[in-house]
């Protein structure tokens, strides 16, 4: 798979450290994410993949290190700058997170109403065009609970792209969907990314799906990047953590027991 502009870095992360209590979630992570590419963060559950997304969107502040998105330093932004910056980011959360008290139309219109002063007819056309872009024209008056899981995810997708973001963040976008919906979402992600020249980051633990979608992949284990590269390269990697994860083995450096300092403290008390 070719990348649109292979030489420009959209997201640059340097020596990122993040701690939660006594537990170090990320320890000295560095990466360069190319403009126009789709990148996956993979790793076992609870390893801090979602934490990276929250750091990039500025929801969490790193304990050390820097994050630069399109040349802007996220880690040094004030709340006001951050607020402004987030308009350039589209986020698709794990279960879609549609607003349950609003119709499909109002769900997609919410970011527009909040951040623009578009007249109602124009706003309506924009929402309808996004809705038909995800193949769901005509369901604008339905409520979220009337939609199937796959449809809800596509509506959430339309909402995420309605402000034409430069960067898309996906948190487990395919979890809990049937195989057809999975392919639909995957195609949408790819086509949107390439058509609009976005940079996309996907957090997932679904190895098979990701191998079909992404350009580049980071495997995170034990708070560090255990391996990186295009999916086909990682598939044949012999690095122990990467091999264990890609092949779903129980034996390997990624432990079965969840050890925190807290357990030992509790026993000594």
């Amino acid at each position: 798979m070719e990348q649109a502009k292979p030489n420009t870095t959209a997201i640059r992360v340097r020596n990122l450290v993040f701690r939660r209590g006594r537990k170090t979630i990320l320890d000295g992570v560095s990466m360069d994410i190319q403009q126009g590419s789709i990148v996956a963060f993979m790793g076992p559950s609870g390893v801090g993949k979602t934490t990276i997304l929250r750091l990039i969107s500025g929801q969490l502040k790193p304990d050390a290190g820097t994050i630069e998105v399109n040349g802007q330093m996220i880690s040094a932004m004030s709340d006001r700058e951050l607020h402004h910056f987030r308009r350039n980011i589209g986020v698709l959360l794990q279960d879609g997170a549609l607003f349950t008290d609003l119709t499909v139309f109002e769900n997609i219109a919410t970011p527009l109403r909040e951040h623009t002063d578009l007249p109602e007819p124009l706003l309506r056309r924009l929402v309808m065009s996004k809705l038909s872009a995800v193949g769901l024209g005509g369901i604008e008056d339905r409520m979220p609970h009337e939609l199937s899981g796959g449809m809800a995810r596509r509506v959430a997708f339309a909402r995420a792209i309605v402000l034409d973001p430069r960067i898309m963040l996906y948190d487990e976008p395919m979890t809990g969907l049937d195989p057809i919906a999975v392919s639909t979402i995957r195609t949408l992600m790819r086509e949107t990314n390439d058509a609009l020249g976005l940079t996309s980051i996907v957090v997932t633990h679904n190895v098979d799906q990701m191998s079909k979608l992404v350009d580049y992949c980071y495997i995170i284990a034990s708070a560090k990047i255990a391996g990186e590269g295009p999916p086909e390269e990682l598939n044949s990697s012999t690095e122990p953590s990467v091999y264990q994860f890609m092949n779903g083995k129980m034996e390997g450096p990624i432990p079965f027991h969840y050890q925190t300092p807290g357990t030992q403290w509790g026993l000594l008390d």
Partner: protein
Amino acid sequence: MAVSESYISKLTAPVAQSGQCLLFLFRMISSIRFNASQLRAVLQQTYLIGARSLVIIMICGFFVGMVLSLQAINALEQFGASDQVSLLVVKSLFRELGPVLTALLFAGRAGTSVTAEIGLMKATNQIEAMELMAIDPIQVIALPRFLAGLISLPLLTAMFNALAILGSIVFAIGVMDMDSGIFWSKLQNGIYFYKDFIGGIWKSLVFGGLVSLIAVYFGYTAKPTGAGVGTATTNTVVLSSVLILVFDFIMTSFFT
């Protein structure tokens, strides 16, 4: 060491939480904007929280008025003063029972639904999604519900009072055959608009702020799980009910 630490934190936790709650209130107040979308949201919530509580408030008010008259007539008959029933009923209604009972009912009917709604929004990541869309959930979710509660409760209290008087009329005049002229003239001479009626409505405004602040705050700080939302909902009812009665005594003893 560990024991005394946990002891201290148990003692300081309520203080810390009240502080958090007040900070939350300031954040809400500072996000007030007088624009069309916020006005629309407040109106919509006033309908959902206030207008939808009307039926239960009216039914309860009617029966409270009836039972008050029943008890009052029984008690006053012993002194041959049963013609004072309307004065006793309406004075106790306007000053105490109206504001307090309406606030308690409101906490159970509207406070819980607000807490559960916001808690569920949190549990299903809707609050997080808003933050990521650079939309302030305190401004869009919390504030309209708080203001709606503040607006609704005094109006509901007035409605409760009206229906209670109607209940009193039905029982005293309709059932006990009391003279309607005496019923009304006692009210006309003995009830004062500012001292009795506004004194009660003013209290209900404070209760409205109290109940809706607690409801919104507990919903917003609920643990994003089923059990967490359940606990938050229970806490809303318990704490609002207790604080309504405590504040009622404080306000009545200091300001009347």
